[in-house]
């Protein structure tokens, strides 16, 4: 589904990613861990097509197509979703209105008819229940006055509504208490499926107790320095990142 080869990328002309190789197949869940500033958010944003985040070498292929030339909205319509580390407030625009416009825009891109008001209401009620979000949140302006946890849950609601093929979650677990964490995991697990893939950027292994990844990668200074299975995350939690750096030094 996602095939990243020797990816070098700059953020507003500052080189951040230094040769990333990553293969994510349909049906898989990948976790990306690593110290602060190692380039995790940058990677997620490059895949999503954020302006200012430029590929300087290498390639990102999604569903067999190089996506460098696609705008952010085209990538979204192709099924790429990014749950933001810092969700943005849009004053005066209700969650509902935004989601309806988003769904219809994606449908239009795919040559499908607009969703009916009744179907939309049914869908959003269902999904709101899944992430245990009260109806009143749907009418409030997007993320405006939401607590940190509510913003993160709102990201998961949006993901659940848009049903992406590739979901990138950037530290959706940060700052959540255990109940909220479970709700987020519930939303993500509901999305898991044969023809979807999920990339979780996280600091903590505790999220991985609820969403069990197939692969864990460690990012350091813009490179994937180690990959493994879930046990790698456990080891990182117990021993931190220093042993990886020691290993790297010994190797060189």
């Amino acid at each position, binding site marked *: 589904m996602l095939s990243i080869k020797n990816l070098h990328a700059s953020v507003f002309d500052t080189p951040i990613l230094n040769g990333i190789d990553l293969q994510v197949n349909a049906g898989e869940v990948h976790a990306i861990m690593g110290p602060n500033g190692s380039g995790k958010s940058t990677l997620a944003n490059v895949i*999503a*097509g*954020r*302006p*200012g985040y430029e590929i300087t070498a290498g390639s990102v292929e999604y569903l067999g197509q190089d996506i460098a030339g696609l*705008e*952010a*909205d085209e*990538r*979204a*319509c192709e099924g790429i*979703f*990014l749950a*933001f580390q810092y*969700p*943005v*407030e*849009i*004053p*005066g*625009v209700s969650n509902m*209105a*935004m*989601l309806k*416009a*988003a*769904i219809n*825009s*994606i449908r239009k*891109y795919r040559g499908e008819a607009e969703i009916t008001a009744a179907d939309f209401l049914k869908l959003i009620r269902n999904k709101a229940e899944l992430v245990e979000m009260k109806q009143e949140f749907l009418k409030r*302006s997007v993320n405006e006055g939401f607590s940190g946890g509510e913003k993160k849950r709102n990201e998961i609601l*949006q993901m659940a509504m*848009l049903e992406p093929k590739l979901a990138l979650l950037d530290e959706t677990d940060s700052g959540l208490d255990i109940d909220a964490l479970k709700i987020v995991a519930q939303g993500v697990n509901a999305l898991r499926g044969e023809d979807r893939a999920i990339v979780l950027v996280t600091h903590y292994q505790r999220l991985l107790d609820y969403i069990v990844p197939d692969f864990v990668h460690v990012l350091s200074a813009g490179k994937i320095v180690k990959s493994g299975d879930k046990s790698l995350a456990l080891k990182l939690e117990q021993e931190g990142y220093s042993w990886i750096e020691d290993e790297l030094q010994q190797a060189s």
Partner: protein
Amino acid sequence: MYKAMTEVAEQNKDLKDLVKREYKEGFVTEIESDTLAPGLDEDVVRLISEKKGEPEFMLEYRLKAFRRWQKMKEPDWAHINYPKIDFQAISYYSAPKALPKLESLDQVDPKLLETYEKLGIPLEEQKMLANVAVDAVFDSVSVRTTFRETLSAAGVIFMPISEAVHEHPELVKKYLSSVVPVQDNYYAALNSAVFSDGSFVFIPKGVRCPMELSTYFRINEMNTGQFERTLIIAEEDAYVSYLEGCTAPQRDENQLHAAVVELIAHEGAEIKYSTVQNWYPGDENGKGGIYNFVTKRGLCKGDNSKISWTQVETGSAITWKYPSVVLQGDNSVGEFYSVALSHNKQQADTGTKMIHMGKNTSSTIISKGISAGHGQNTYRGLVKVLKGADNARNFSQCDSLLMGDRCGAHTFPYIEVQNPSANLEHEATTSKISEDQLFYLMQRGLSAEAAVSMIVNGFCKEVFRELPMEFAVEAQKLLDISLEGAVG
């Protein structure tokens, strides 16, 4: 906190510049008209009055205004730049040649009907927006007022002011210039001297007007000025909601529009006045467009009366407009909700005045300014609390939204308080559409244009919700069209 503030845009390189919007109302109607040669003197004023067969009191009124105007100086405003207007190069009267009095639609020139169809304002009653009566003013003359019978059954008078002068001279005499004196300002004096038509509304005691009343103004002829005059009176406990919409053909020359609107609300009455203004704004280099110098003022004359102005201003090369409320009655309420957009080389200087005179009066001001391209948007507001106005309250909120790095937003909230019990609050914000917001919405699948439109409409929400439903939709569409190409 209350002192004048200026915020000039500094902005985001990535929101690229704004291009052309097409002005779809920019066509010209080929129609024979009766147009006076350009120029203004006492004879022209007499001629206008004579053409309309006005009673003596109107001629006297006009002449008095003209003499005042001659002695006045054109105002000079800090944040508006435009070449001097040559008042002698303007024609002060233009009327489509038609039958003298129209009894039915069949007698309206089909070309005129076509014009209004193109503008999306069918005048045939069955095709009209449900529950909206329309008075259409083409250049200087009222073309047709719809639903007159239904309205008169309710006791509501809704007719061109040129007819009211004949049919209800006592009302016109009593109320004309009772809120905006002829010498009030330069443009008001000019209007009083030469106005040709506009709407007259009278809602008798205790009557809730059964439908929305609306007027469409259309400037068609070249080099004509439009000076319409609107007078709305709501007697005790009456209610009316009135809407005006405006368009003009696309021309390279600037055209002058200097209207005067007066509202009078008696005890317990409420008047809601909404404007969706879409005059031709000129092209992206600032060529052409309407100069819109308008005096709008409402008088809350009786206790417990309420006047509310809502405006969405997307057109005009220059807008100079301060709808105001004089809160004379005790417990009276004044409101001002405004969205003003200036794109390309447009300049908007708009705001409101709330004059608190009675006891326990309150006013609310919500102003949303949007600047894009080289647009300059100025909010200029005055809240004045006079000595006897115990417990006056005002809440003002002025928000500016900037798009691009060459536009500007300026906020001048003035206050004058002569009574210590006054409670005034003012909030002001300036924001720009951020890259983060755009990317966020685009990541959800919206195009750049749809994302901008959504952010702008969210910004304007508090004003749009004051508009009647159909017009809120219209206003949103208008903003979308006006901002087309606003992001690269």
